[in-house]
């Protein structure tokens, strides 16, 4: 994927290490506006870490992360908080606030970050719950919901502020095929409805090819391939080909794991 001036997110030579353990070693990535970029990679390979770098929750040990031209990796805590209001994050395990009801979970960013009235907030909450098909769960507590329901509520919370960028961390992991398809359709429809850029981290191939407009493969701390889903499917890169086919024979299991 080439760098374009219309990029929403850019990563330039991003390195990240925890102590002596290097997680990312020279990531270069550019995400065009309104794209749905799927980042593929092995479990524990640093995919979720990439999302945390974009949010500024982690800072790279070297390199630069930019969002809409602003360098995230050099922002102060207060500026980061303002930038994050334009980004929605959907967590793998939903990360709903367990002490708050579904309504309060969704209303939290609106109450804390906007000056909207209670009626306006309630209207927005109902609207987003309707969008994810969870209007009935409004007054429930997170503990009363199933994994799939929580995920949809997490998704609704992620888009409650109408973000310009939505980050999805394993959105369909651990869900049954039907709910997984519902989530995939939601990702596509949300991206089309609100025109947001989406970055989806997953290792589920079915979901990946359904939602992606762009794809990238993270392997051993670097992006080894970035292309359209069609080209990805026919990639002659042995790592990409093995990962997509899910075969045991190939370079992935043979290569020494990074420590």
């Amino acid at each position, binding site marked *: 994927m080439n760098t374009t001036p219309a990029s929403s997110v850019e990563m330039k030579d991003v390195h990240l290490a925890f102590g002596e353990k290097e997680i990312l070693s020279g990531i270069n990535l550019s995400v065009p506006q309104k794209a749905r970029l799927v980042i593929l990679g092995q479990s524990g390979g640093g995919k979720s870490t990439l999302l945390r770098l974009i*949010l500024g929750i982690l800072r790279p040990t070297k390199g630069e992360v930019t969002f809409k031209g602003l360098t995230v990796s050099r922002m102060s805590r207060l500026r980061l*908080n303002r930038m*994050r*209001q334009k*980004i929605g*994050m959907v*967590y793998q395990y939903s990360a*709903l606030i*367990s002490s708050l009801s579904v309504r309060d979970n969704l209303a939290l960013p609106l109450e804390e*970050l906007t000056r909207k009235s209670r009626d306006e907030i309630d209207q927005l909450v109902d609207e987003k719950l309707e969008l994810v098909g969870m209007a009935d769960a409004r007054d429930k507590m997170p503990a009363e919901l199933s994994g799939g329901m929580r995920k949809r509520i997490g998704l609704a919370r992620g888009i409650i502020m109408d973000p310009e960028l939505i980050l999805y961390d394993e959105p369909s992991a651990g869900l049954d095929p039907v709910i997984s398809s519902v989530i995939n359709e939601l990702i596509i429809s949300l991206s089309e409805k609100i025109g947001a850029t989406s970055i989806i981290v997953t290792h589920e191939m079915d979901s990946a090819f359904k939602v992606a407009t762009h794809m990238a493969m993270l392997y051993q701390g670097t992006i080894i391939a970035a292309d359209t889903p069609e080209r990805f499917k026919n990639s002659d890169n042995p790592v990409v080909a093995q990962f997509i086919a899910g075969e045991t024979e190939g370079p992935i299991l043979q290569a020494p794991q990074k420590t």
Partner: protein
Amino acid sequence: MQRSPSPIRTTLQHLSSVVWLLVDTGKEMGDRMMRGRLPFRFSIFFEQTDRTGVGSIALISLVSFFIGLTMALLTGYQLQTFGQERLVPGLVGISFTRELGPLMTGIMIAARIGAAYTAELGTMTVSEEVEAIEAMGIGPLRFLVGPRVLAVFFLLPCLVVVSNFTAMSGAALISRWAFDIPFTRFIDTALDSMLIRDIIAGTIKSFLFGLIIGLVSCYKGLTVKGGAAGVGNATTSSVVTAITTVIGFDTLCNIVLVALFDT
């Protein structure tokens, strides 16, 4: 082989992190107020003050009452040997207003409230709730840490007053029964012996202990690693660290006060 950092270096790192926690929490609340908004949800603040203050009154009262009573009884018997049991009210009064009231209350609040704060924030940290709040741009420090630290900061001195009062009550009761000191004489002698300086010193210490307990417990909660076991370890560590720090600062305050006022 990787060398583990020295304990002094680790302690200094934690200390600087706690200071930065205070600074960043202040900055987040200040930024919020500059934009004409409340620094945090007052409902959370009042919930925490209720939990810290009202919820701790029974424990503080009971423990202080028994300590006051025991202290008066044991010192009274020793002083009785020299015919000086009349000194008991002053002894208990000074000990509690200046030293034991803030210290005992600090230890009890570190165990009761500090542990609760760490466990609560620790559980939120391991379930990514704190990160989700941060990712939304809400600012977890002002939202979660601010109301908790301020609640324990403002409520600890109030609880010290309760502690002093109940300890004196226990001491007065046992003095009446064991040493024939009437209540009115007990109160008069105790008030005559106490100095404003002691009360001020005790109050300043109470605010300081409240701040220490709030910051240490929130810091330990926000830095939890490793799931349920991590939360358990952090809670234990929080209580131990808060109590040790409170006692350490108490000693430091006493040294400074003695050096300044020569008593």
